[in-house]
């Protein structure tokens, strides 16, 4: 038995050519299940929730074994304490939005129930929809209600199956931020299915890449998505940097926040509404890192970080430069830049990063 | 459908008969067939039902009712041949109780508190039910026995209620008790109007000759013998 918070080992034959065979270990935090259509993501979540029976395997959340084919254990769904957000909403059509969200709170004290409902309505901006029936909701509204319903119950494990695919980019950013916050305050392990790198980056502390029913890559988003040898992945994603940083100071007149990456540099990022001392997560696309031989002045970029090239990876017309400046960064450049700057492993380099390129996740 | 008759069997004679004849009539049908070579097909139902059917053109040849009123009604409507209307048997009611229970001597015994239910046919439409009611009324028992009176759709059902022990006693037809598992004793015939079971040939019968022969057989000695064995007495006479 591993000492991960959640342990998922499953085998299930789907059809002649596809057998799902996954082995995931999750911590408190959001783990992304990433993979192309038909790779078995939904089936994995269903098996964990008990919606379908795997052929064999073992599922453990904390010290509760939800399923174990050898011991013949298979907890009934209602005892699994697993929240799930479905790909096709599955909101109860005969209940109002309010009743849907309250559905899992039947045994809660009246007042807490009301408070939770309010909190969920705020979080997912569904206040004005509470009295409506799901049939009259738009696609994105349904997804938000589905999220609220599953999260309201404070499950011990949250399974999200492309929960925000129908939501526009603005709403998506807001929801992702909310989800991240929920996940952090409630310390729920989350298994999150998506094929959007943006979502994976924004939420994921860990990514599992599924292909034809098997986990073909796993690790932090940084490792997985920057692992240059994953060619199929490279086609699916855009490489990014993810940094955890502590808010050090706000310069609101300049529209900036200074955040220190532990063991690394101080980043100047667009003003965030987080208190000094709190931890924020910053996403930075490898494409957005500009490289220079030495610091330059008189440009709008707010960050100028000196470091050392650790590795230069080439695949065709793509070049990825790995840089160490206390923490590891990935920069993606065209081959011409490598020659013109004379970059080589071990050599010095300066990263120029716009504040605006640092996205708060 | 009709099958190709190997022995050129004639179309059976259709006889509509009141339910209380169910025991007796098959035998009379056999007699008729032996005598004429023509089979008889019986339709047993309540007299009320059969009357309605005949009024709406049911293709019966003979109608043997459980009383006289309905035949008269049909006669008035021209649904039966007037010249064939004839009483063929007189029915009697009896006091019946479940086999093995204490014997009842008279209607008075129905007051016995051990008797919770007294089954009779529905006097609203069943001739024997009406007779039972008359008898009880004459014995001044109708009102006091009200709480016990239990009505059945017909005389056969009333008998079943007694047979099964759901009603401790009842007033039913002699023609029915004979074939059932109840014990019984006569009820004084003066207590109720005689039940003149009347027969007639149905107007428009395509085999009215055969139908008349059936009526003759019924009224004749052989028919009467069978009826007597079933508990009927000859028409227009006492028990």
């Amino acid at each position, binding site marked *: 038995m591993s000492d991960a918070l959640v342990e998922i080992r499953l085998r299930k034959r789907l059809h002649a050519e596809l057998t799902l065979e996954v082995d995931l270990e999750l911590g408190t935090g959001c783990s992304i299940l990433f993979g192309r259509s038909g790779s078995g993501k939904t089936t994995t979540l269903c098996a964990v929730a008990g919606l379908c029976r795997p052929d064999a395997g073992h599922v453990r959340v904390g010290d509760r074994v939800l399923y174990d084919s050898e011991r013949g254990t298979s907890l009934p769904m209602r005892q699994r304490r697993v929240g799930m957000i479905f790909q096709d909403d599955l909101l109860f059509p005969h209940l109002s939005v309010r009743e849907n969200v309250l559905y899992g709170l039947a045994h809660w004290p009246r007042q807490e129930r009301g408070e939770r409902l309010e909190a969920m309505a705020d979080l997912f901006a569904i206040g004005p929809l509470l009295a409506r029936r799901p049939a009259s909701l738009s696609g994105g509204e349904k997804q938000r209600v589905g999220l609220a319903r599953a999260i309201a119950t404070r499950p011990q494990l949250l399974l999200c199956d492309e929960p925000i695919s129908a939501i526009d980019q603005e709403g998506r950013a807001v929801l992702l931020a909310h989800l991240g916050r929920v996940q952090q305050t409630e310390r729920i392990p989350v298994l999150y299915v998506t094929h959007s790198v943006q979502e994976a980056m924004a939420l994921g502390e860990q990514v599992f890449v599924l292909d034809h029913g098997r986990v073909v890559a796993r690790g932090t988003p940084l490792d997985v998505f920057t692992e240059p040898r994953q060619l199929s992945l490279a086609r699916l994603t855009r490489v990014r940097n993810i940094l955890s940083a502590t808010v050090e100071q706000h310069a609101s007149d300049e529209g900036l926040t200074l955040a220190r990456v532990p063991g690394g540099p101080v980043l100047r990022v667009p003003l965030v509404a987080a208190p000094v001392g709190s931890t924020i997560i910053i996403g930075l696309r490898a494409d957005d890192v500009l490289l220079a031989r030495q610091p330059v002045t008189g440009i709008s970029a707010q960050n100028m970080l000196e470091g050392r090239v650790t590795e230069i990876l080439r695949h065709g017309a793509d070049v990825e430069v790995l840089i160490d400046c206390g923490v590891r960064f990935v920069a993606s450049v065209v081959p011409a830049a490598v020659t013109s700057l004379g970059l080589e492993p071990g050599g010095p380099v300066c990263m120029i990063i716009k504040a605006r390129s640092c996205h708060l996740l | 459908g009709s099958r190709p008759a190997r022995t050129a069997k004639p179309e059976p004679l259709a006889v509509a008969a009141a339910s209380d004849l169910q025991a007796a009539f098959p035998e009379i049908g056999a007699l008729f067939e032996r005598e004429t070579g023509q089979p008889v097909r019986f339709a047993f139902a309540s007299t009320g039902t059969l009357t*309605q059917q005949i009024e709406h*053109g*049911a*293709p019966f040849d003979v109608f043997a009712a459980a009383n006289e009123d309905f035949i008269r009604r049909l006669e008035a409507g021209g649904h039966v041949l007037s010249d064939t209307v004839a009483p063929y048997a007189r029915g009697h009611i009896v006091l019946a109780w479940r086999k093995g229970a204490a014997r009842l001597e008279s209607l008075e015994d129905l007051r016995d508190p051990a008797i919770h239910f007294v089954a009779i046919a529905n006097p609203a439409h069943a001739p024997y039910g009406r007779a039972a009611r008359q008898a009880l009324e004459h014995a001044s028992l109708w009102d006091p026995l009200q709480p016990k009176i239990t009505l059945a759709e017909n005389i056969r059902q009333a008998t079943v209620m007694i047979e099964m022990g759901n009603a401790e006693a009842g007033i039913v037809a002699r023609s029915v008790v004979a074939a059932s598992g109840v014990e019984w004793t006569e009820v004084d015939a003066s207590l109720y109007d005689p039940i003149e079971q009347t027969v007639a040939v149905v107007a428009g019968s395509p085999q009215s000759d055969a139908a008349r022969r059936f009526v003759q057989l019924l009224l004749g000695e052989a028919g009467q013998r069978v009826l007597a064995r079933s508990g009927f007495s000859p028409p227009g006479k006492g028990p």
Partner: protein
Amino acid sequence: MSVDLRPLYLTLEISLASTVLVLAAGTPIAWLLARKNFFGKHLVDALVMQPLVIPPTVLGYYLLVLLGRSSALGRFLEQHLGIVIVFSVPGAVLAAAAASVPLYIKPARAAIESVPRAYEDVARLLGRSEWSVLWTVTLPLAWRGIVAGAVMAFTRAMGDFGATLMVIGGRFQTVSIAIYDAWQAGDLSRANLLVLIITVFSILVLWSVSRLTGGRI
């Protein structure tokens, strides 16, 4: 004890024919009630249920009044087409159908109403006529209710006694009538035997329907 099996054939024949009739007449009504709004819909809905409320014998009687040889319709049919409906197998079929049609319409309507209209709209958008939509989408998606209703109608027709008795005029015997007659005649063992036969028979029929509909229903 020797048992005449003809009533069984006749019963099967009548109830099959009656079920066909019920399906043919009941389906459009169920569909109308489920999908259309018209004046007097509640009334039609309630009227359709009337055969359940009236004693079957009396129901048969009304059929006689309506179709009997002395009714306007009956006279017309008899004189001009030489058809006598009452006191014949077709009459019994009609009676059985009249008695069982509510059992079909009600669940069929409920099932049709439960079919999401969106699927019908998709079919229409794909160019299909209303008729085709009904057959390829509505009824297949409502099949559980339809089959449930049809099975009930069939079973009810098989068991119909009062209405059939009234209309059939004792010319034929269905199993129900045979049971009743045997019971009336005090021949309980015969009645029980007949009940056993019809029970086994109906179980076989229901079981085959179960199998045919994929083990469910």
